[in-house]
């Protein structure tokens, strides 16, 4: 099993433009996806599904959305949570207000609404950029936080903005067991990831990256910043909206606006940073890391404390979690600003050249 490209020749541009041009990569991806669909359900217990796998899948999707905007189009957002909220509440409204609305359609429509909101709140990006834009996106965050808490119409007049939805029914398949939820989310994630990959390797992705890397100069080669930036906001918000609807419908079942607070926005941003900006795989790495870390710490800290005869309170665990979390972010930014995905690809590059160092 050598990781080598020697002897592989492309004879057409078509072959050269495949999503994964190296056959070894292609087979690895197929194997991973197959394992996720078939192997995982056979191996894993219910707790794993509920606590880790389902949140991981949905947050991966959300992180992918953030990555499109931040990593590929270079527009920093601190309002990702708000897009998720719009998606979740919009999907909820489609469900309760329209009789016989299929859940999947409601979720997609929720994503569409989030995309529209994303375009409106992304509009300042045409005038301001960088740090100013980051702060401008906070406006969206606080506005929607407030709207879902105070405007009763959005939550069908429920108190404190909390709403709940029944189990999803998809063409006769009722999604209620953890395994069902897992498979459903996995399916959505795979489809959306493939579409993201397609967009990013084509003309759209190139336009976004041109805006990210050269902004003013991009207009000179015929890229309209308005179009490129707003499509990035729309696509990103669409992904986030769908993820938000899934988070509400599948993972939580019932939720309040606090589920999509600024903490969620920051969490998503961290996933992208730690995972790797401008790399699709980075979204998965980052989501996995951030879903697993608190669970890991919750289990380990009392054990470690026990070794030294210390009582570790729940409050202390949450404080230590803060500290470790923050330190890791700084650590990653220092060691590899491009995240786990870059560490991964550097490793792969070395493998290709192995045993020669350069």
């Amino acid at each position: 099993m050598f990781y080598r490209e020697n002897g592989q020749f492309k004879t057409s541009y078509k072959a050269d433009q495949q999503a994964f041009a190296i056959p070894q990569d292609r087979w690895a991806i197929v194997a991973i996806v197959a394992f996720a669909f078939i192997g995982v359900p056979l191996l894993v217990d219910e707790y794993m599904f509920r606590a880790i796998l389902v949140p991981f899948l949905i947050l991966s999707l959300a992180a992918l959305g953030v990555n499109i905007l931040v990593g590929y189009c270079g527009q920093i957002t601190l309002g990702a949570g708000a897009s998720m909220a719009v998606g979740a509440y919009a999907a909820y409204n489609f469900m309760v207000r329209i009789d016989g609305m299929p859940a999947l359609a409601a979720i997609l429509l929720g994503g569409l609404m989030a995309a529209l909101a994303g375009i409106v709140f992304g509009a300042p990006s045409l005038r301001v950029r960088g740090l100013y834009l980051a702060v401008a996106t906070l406006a969206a965050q606080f506005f929607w936080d407030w709207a879902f808490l105070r405007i009763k119409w959005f939550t069908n007049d429920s108190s404190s903005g909390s709403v709940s939805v029944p189990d999803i029914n998809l063409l006769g398949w009722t999604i209620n067991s953890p395994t069902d939820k897992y498979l459903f989310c996995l399916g959505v994630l795979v489809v959306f990831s493939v579409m993201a990959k397609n967009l990013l390797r084509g003309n759209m992705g190139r336009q976004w990256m041109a805006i990210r890397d050269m902004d003013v100069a991009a207009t000179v080669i015929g890229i309209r910043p308005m179009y490129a930036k707003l499509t990035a906001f729309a696509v990103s918000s669409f992904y986030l909206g769908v993820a938000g609807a899934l988070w509400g419908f599948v993972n939580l079942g019932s939720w309040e606006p606090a589920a999509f607070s600024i903490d969620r926005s920051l969490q998503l941003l961290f996933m992208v940073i730690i995972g790797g900006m401008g790399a699709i795989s980075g979204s998965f790495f980052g989501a996995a890391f951030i879903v697993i870390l608190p669970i890991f710490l919750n289990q380990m800290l009392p054990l470690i404390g026990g070794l030294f005869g210390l009582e570790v309170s729940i409050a202390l665990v949450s404080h230590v979690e803060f500290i470790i979390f923050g330190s890791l972010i700084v650590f990653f930014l220092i060691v590899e600003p491009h995240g786990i995905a870059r560490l991964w690809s550097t490793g792969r590059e070395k493998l290709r050249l192995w045993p020669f160092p350069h």
Partner: protein
Amino acid sequence: MAFFLETLLGGLMSGMLYSLVALGFVLIFKASGVFNFAQGAMVLFAALAMARFSEWIPGWMGMENLFVANLLAFTVAVAIMFVVAWLIERLALRYLVNQEGATLLMATLGIAYVLDGIGQTIFGSDIYKIDVGMPKEPVMMLESVFDGGILINKEDFIAALIAALLVISLSIFFQKTATGRALRAVADDHQAAQSIGIPLDRIWVIVWCVAGITALVAGIIWGSKLGVQFSLSTIALRALPVVILGGLTSVPGAIIGGLIIGVGEKLSEVYLGPYVGGGIEIWFAYMLALVFLLFRPQGLFGEKIIDRV
């Protein structure tokens, strides 16, 4: 009319406090090009230190004098903020020389988390009070003009005065001293500053020390008003629109932006809030800042950005 003026003055006073936090942002950004998201966490950290030590020190030394205890606690808190500044430079910033603004911003988010965690681990996570003997009683003003006059908090007045003093001394430091000049040079171009022998590490420690002291002052004032608790770290989020409105690099911008936001918030909450269910001040501030941004993308006092290709 008297009610309107009272609201207005109330807005101005709370705006002054926003300015104080915003000032911390502007200082660090101006001098090191870092948009310090951890400023709120630093305010909380500093306030916690101040609150706890002013409680602990009398206990340890068995003394009663509030003034001396506060003075000692203040000194200890300053020292702690210096250590924090030094550690931040040592452990994080020095490895991030020459990185993009976004990377630095996210690093400070990480620092904010660490500070929040450490602060609560050491100092506890309850609500504490700071009592530096600020007069709480209200003052009546303009009784001759309006019936019943206008109610003003004396505390707010003193706070505004302190903020003004801090700003003046900082401006002098920045414009007139060799260190201030070096700080501004570093803000412009890290590598060029390095190439002519300005030691980045030392400059950054100084900047963060200054920001730490600003945070401490803000923390004491806010803390003595509202009590010291975790939510204090979110005042950074309240101060962000101020920074954006005033321009990231402008000290006067931070002040005037703070006043505008303070007044806008209060007026909107009082006159607009009842119609839409209340609680609008936080996003209203952001919207206000956004509207300004649409007309002046660099903020009120920020330097104009000219795109060059």
